[in-house]
């Protein structure tokens, strides 16, 4: 009897790859899926279940399904991809400085003057005393970001 191709192994592995590499370009951009990567973890669980099914088929029913070697290799690679993702999102992304000396609520914000995109100097105090969209400025949100170099 011709043994069948063990498709769930390969589909499972592709799902795990998609789980790992869809977070930064897609799900980290959507507010609902960014802070905690639940969509990606769900994809990982789905991929792992498919690989598990493939493993079971390859070893329990070797007469009907192929893929013993592929099952072991893909299961190991899948675990590696999951590990890489977990370390990246839960460890490296959280290696941020303490910022213990940052201005606190109730304190005066340190004054500054920086160049805007047009090369003109802009001071915090002048931003606060000018108008925005035709209205007097009531507050300002400073957004510090990593930049694009």
């Amino acid at each position, binding site marked *: 009897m011709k043994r069948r191709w063990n498709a769930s192994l390969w589909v499972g592995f592709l799902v795990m790859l998609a789980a790992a590499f869809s977070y930064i370009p897609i799900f*980290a951009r959507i*507010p609902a899926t*960014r*802070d905690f990567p639940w969509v990606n973890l769900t994809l990982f669980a789905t991929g792992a279940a498919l690989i598990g099914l493939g493993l079971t088929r390859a070893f329990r029913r070797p007469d009907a399904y192929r893929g013993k070697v592929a099952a072991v290799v893909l299961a190991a690679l899948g675990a590696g991809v999951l590990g890489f993702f977990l370390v990246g*999102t839960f460890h490296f*992304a*959280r290696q*941020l*400085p303490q*910022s*213990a*000396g*940052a*201005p*606190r*609520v*109730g*304190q*005066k*914000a*340190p*004054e*500054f003057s*920086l*160049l*805007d*995109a*047009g*090369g003109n100097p*802009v001071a*915090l*105090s002048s*931003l*606060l*005393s000018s*108008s*925005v*969209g*035709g*209205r*007097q*400025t*009531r*507050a*300002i*949100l*400073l*957004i*510090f*970001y*990593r*930049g*694009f*170099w």
Partner: protein
Amino acid sequence: MRSFQERLAEFDARGLRLAAISVDSPAINREYVRKEGYTFAFLSDPAAQVIRRYDVLHPGAGPEGQQVARPGEFLIDSTGTVRWVNLTESVLVRARPGQVLQVFDDLVRAPLGANR
């Protein structure tokens, strides 16, 4: 940044101004702002002097080991007083526009000082 630009009218209506600060030069900011169509202020702090004064420096975190700013947001009222600070523990987690608008509305509604 894009999500803030998309809701900029809501910020303008409240008199709530936005200013983004990074180590990027005005030339890089000009290119970026033009490409993305941003209309709020992008300020350059190449020597990270202001970034350091606000203690949001992340040394060596740039792709070539440059010093950059870690993500962080400060809401400052018209008297120059800090009213809200957002410093998350992950680079992937940043303030959302809706969250900031809510914080601002709550601050306006609350009697001065009651929220501290």
